[in-house]
């Protein structure tokens, strides 16, 4: 039972949820609806109309169906864009 729970939690991912333009004024209601289908809501970014949080992979389709949601994406890792070996810590 515990292992089953652990396995389910492994499929939990960080997500970014874009809210539709005509729902930005009611972003808190959209967030509430997202929580109801399984979003562990961690942030509301009012100025760009995005909710952040974590969710199980299996609830992403439901999350995409929440009224006012236009896109749900799993967060990506980033790196900087310097050429390896090109930066030099030389003093001058």
């Amino acid at each position: 039972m515990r292992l089953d729970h652990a396995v389910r939690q492994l499929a939990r991912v960080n997500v970014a949820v874009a809210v539709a333009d005509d729902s930005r004024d009611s972003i808190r209601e959209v967030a509430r609806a997202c929580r109801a289908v399984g979003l562990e809501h961690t942030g509301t970014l009012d100025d760009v109309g995005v909710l952040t949080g974590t969710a199980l992979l299996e609830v992403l389709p439901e999350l995409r169906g929440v009224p006012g949601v236009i896109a749900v994406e799993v967060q990506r890792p980033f790196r900087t864009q310097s050429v390896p070996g090109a930066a030099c810590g030389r003093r001058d």
Partner: protein
Amino acid sequence: MTASCAPGWPACTGRQLVLLGAGTARAGAALLHDAIGVRLTPAEEGACAAPAAPAPGEGVLFERLDAALVGADPDQMRALAALAHARGMTVEPERVLRAAAVRSPLPDGAHASWGLEATGVLASRYSGRGVRVAILDTGLDLQHPDFARRAVRSKSFVPGLAVHDRNGHGTCCAGIACGPDRPRRGARYGIAFGAEPYVAKVLDDDAHGTDGSVIAGINWAVRQGCSVISISLGTPVSEGGGYSRVYERIAARALAAGAVLIAPAGNSSQRPDCISPVEHPANCPSVLAVGALNQNLAPASFSNGRLDTGKHVVDIMAPGTAMRSCAPRPTLYQVASGTSTAAPFVAGIAALLAEASPNARGAALRALILKCARRLPGRARADGAGVVRAP
């Protein structure tokens, strides 16, 4: 599977890096043990050195990162791939990262700032005065002598870390965009010396980050009224894969709020044989994608962006090799290459244009940046609007 076309880099160690679900490190360790027989040992708290290479069947658990480094024989590798597919885990070959070593001698005098001359910055009467410029990166050495007297607004979006930059990448980018006209030492390297820098730390001191912190940084910059937002980071995209709908919406909203997002095209090309597509998030149509030029004003060998279907081509080019800028103390100055340096270069010139045209903000400023660029003969479409140009 990414579209990077740089064979041999990054080289891989043969071990596998397993990204577990957020907050599930211990449960993940139990699963890896039960499902494929890999025994994970916790990495030592506070250890700085890399853990010893795990043999097949053994691994190291990075609890705070929800990640594990796993040694797997071919059977275990197959089981791991199946497990990852079933459980939504990410498995990547561990890459060998090269140390940031000196690759070329520091150019002397004016040559160190070749890009400023080539794009008309040195001759411009504008400094970006009154324009708010956000730099989203690894932070800034706020006490650097070239910034200590500037009114820098800053905020960290990396839990547990202050804005102070221990990596050097963010300080380099902030210096190119907003560095002073008269640095403590050496030739000028900064463009918008009169602009108001807004520094958001969205990558940790190992230059790692995720969409969550970057989006939070963009949100902050928009709220602060920044007209220009430089984000010198990216991640490869799948061959033929589309752009992020979330980022495209964010970038469009930023434009509507008066802010232009500027991002690097990426460095995974090996021109002329192989040119990779523009990376995320620069590949979003509303984000200004910047490619890097060398000192001959030709695309740098590593610079991404090709003529292709979709948005796999850059919007504009800017100097991006042998770029002098500042570095965190005690180093103070550095020379760097990459589309990472080209993006803040465009951000700096965008601030000059914003000062020169106070009514041009958002989409109008973006259009002005492209309109003022100089097209390079013979390479019209692949270089977008051409080389960025100061007013």
